[in-house]
């Protein structure tokens, strides 16, 4: 009996992979950053997660993919969109979440989830890269600083500047102009992150502002982005420990439900107490690192007891 499943988020700038066991325990995860929808990156992410787990692809009962390159993977049994997978992954990580903000490399999205964990409504950025990780990458290059240092530098901002353009290309021109006028890097970076927050608030308003709010995607690791978005929302953000893997985790959970049903049909004995979302919460894989106080947010359900209706539905596969 194959005792593991894999979820792969083949994103626009990074590839993420997650392996779960049959009880939904996080066995291993990986993130590879190698360029736009890069086959090399996804190969690396898969190889790395398998190596960490001490398993091979043949040990996977199901492999489900998501992300921009989700259809390009021969090893995937099924693929689902980022919306479905991020909602599933985020709710598994933070069961009390009612709104998911995901800022990835090329997309930013907000997903309202109802009390059953179902996607109630979603909004995505248009084709422009404004408010995405790509926006930050472009401006990091313009500022000649490493991407990973942007957030910390921006937190040192002492005055409020404004970058009015949402277009990455025009914003780059504005950033260069501000620097030429003598403004400090932290102040300009503060404005860059403020513009991301403004864009995100617009997306949030399209699906309705409601808490608790969880933020996923690589940009959730950027302290300034989180700070400015919280300020714009007027609400705290719940941050998973590994925010980049929400999509891959969601894909893996969908695969897990599917695989468990198939094993059940085949007469295999499975843990009857298995509840995916409860399991993830019990693992504390993500909740311990959460920032903010979920209880202080609007109408949070009791943690650990949310039996996601998505999970129920997945079992109907």
């Amino acid at each position: 009996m194959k005792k593991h499943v894999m979820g792969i988020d083949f994103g626009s700038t990074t590839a993420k992979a997650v392996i779960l066991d049959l009880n939904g325990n996080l066995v291993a995860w990986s993130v590879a950053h190698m360029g736009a929808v890069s086959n090399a990156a996804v190969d690396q992410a898969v190889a790395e997660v398998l190596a960490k787990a001490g398993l091979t692809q043949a040990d996977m009962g199901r492999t489900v993919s998501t992300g921009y390159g989700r259809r390009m993977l021969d090893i995937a049994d099924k693929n689902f969109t980022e919306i479905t997978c991020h909602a599933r992954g985020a709710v598994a990580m933070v069961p009390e979440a009612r709104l998911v903000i995901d800022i990835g490399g090329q997309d930013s999205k907000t997903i309202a989830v109802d009390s059953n964990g179902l996607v109630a409504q979603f909004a995505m950025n248009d084709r422009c890269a404004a408010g995405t990780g790509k926006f930050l990458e472009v401006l990091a290059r313009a500022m000649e600083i490493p991407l990973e240092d942007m957030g910390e530098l921006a937190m040192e901002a002492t005055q409020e500047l404004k970058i009015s353009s949402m277009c990455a290309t025009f914003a780059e021109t504005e950033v260069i102009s501000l620097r030429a006028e003598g403004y400090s890097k932290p102040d300009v970076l503060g404005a860059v992150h403020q513009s991301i927050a403004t864009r995100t608030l617009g997306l949030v308003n399209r699906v309705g502002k409601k808490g608790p709010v969880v933020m996923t995607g690589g940009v959730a690791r950027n302290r300034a982005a989180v700070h400015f978005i919280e300020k714009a929302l007027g609400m705290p953000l719940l941050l998973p420990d590994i925010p980049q893997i929400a999509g891959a985790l969601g894909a893996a959970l969908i695969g897990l439900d599917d695989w468990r049903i198939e094993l059940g049909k085949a007469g295999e004995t499975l843990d009857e107490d298995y509840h995916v979302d409860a399991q993830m919460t019990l693992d504390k894989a993500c909740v311990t690192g959460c920032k903010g106080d979920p209880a202080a947010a609007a109408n949070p359900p009791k943690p650990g007891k949310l039996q996601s209706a998505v999970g129920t539905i997945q079992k109907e596969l």
Partner: protein
Amino acid sequence: MNAPVQPPKLPGAANKLKSTRMAGKLVNEYWEMVWRAKEEGKLVCWYEGSSINPFLEAADIVWVHGEAYSAMLAARHQEGPAQAAAEERGYSRELCSYARTHLGCAVNNQRHRNGSDSAFADVPADEDISAKLPPPDMIISAYAYCSTGQQWDEMTSRLFGKKIPIFNVSIPWIWASGKDAGYCRGKEWEETSVYVARQLEEMVKFIEERTGKPYPWDRLRELMRNVKRASELRLEAMDMCTARPAPATLFDWSVSIAPINQLPCTTDIVDYFTKVRDEVAERVRTGEGAVPKEKYRLFFDGIMNWNKLGWLAEKFAKYDAAVVAGRYTHMAFWQEPDLIDANDPVMGMGQNYLICPNNHSSPILIDLVMGLCEKYQVDGIVFHATRTCRAFTNPMHLIAETAHSRLGLQTSMFEGDVADESFYKDELLNTRVEAMLEAIDARRLATA
């Protein structure tokens, strides 16, 4: 969850109406007639927006509808030379692509016919039909809501040396702020109807000045009898698409815009919509769907992406999604034939110009869209946010919000354009539509 929504792979999934094939022939014959206009000594009028063509046709003036020509070029993937010419002349890519394409036609027309721009003066290549439009002898500007419309006409006039007489018909926005206001009712409606009709009477005098002949009112009445009947047949056929599976989709109705909107108002258009109505009725009788495995029913809010008409028809069909109605197709184009008195048509024509789907205040617009969503029992709304037509895009978030809160519908928005293919990115649409369909699946299972 159901099986994941898969991307389109197989060709020919859309079971399009066969009767609409006639539209292609009629459209070709019409444009051939337009291209011959000068050889035949006809006067030519360029106009955009409202379908004033019956007024012109009655007076034996050849009519050129700017959007129609741009849409035709885009649908044939021949819009490139015109758009390039417009951009070379300095018209921004952010300008309405209908206008930009049509202005490009004017630029090419001038270059090829007059050699006014020696750097580009040339004989047009056979396949380049952007330069084939006959230059206008008059321009009539009669645009509801669109702020670009009048500027477009003014720019056209400039391109032809400011020598072309222009007549302007003001079609006011319907505020609907009075207590008695509603769709086609209330004091404001009555007043604006009279206001537009009075201008149309003046427009007829302008036409008489151009032709030097008394206006042939009997001919207009005859043409409007055909328009009224064609419209009734079209709406009758559309109404039958409440059936499951839907016998026709928005893409069939998009193909049928030209026959109702700008082709000659002869009995040909009555015959066309009779055949369409009959085919739709037969499909309802036999249970034949426009999407063979109809699983989802969607509303399409947005102008058609003409470069992608067939492409989108196939894409949605392959998702087993029947796009059963839309704001563009179901709320425009002589959509209120009962307002037209063929014996005294001017008032009813003006009123149909007033109810352009963009020309309503948001509460009326939203109620109309919600009414269609309920009538056709849709599962979700796809919004085509037209990059260069923000007029149509402006209320989309309001519509989406109401659709979600009032009807519990899933919505999804993608960016594209009416005639500029470069604004459309396929994967953006795929992801957004698939996500919406996955959410619909999940909701169905949860409530099953």
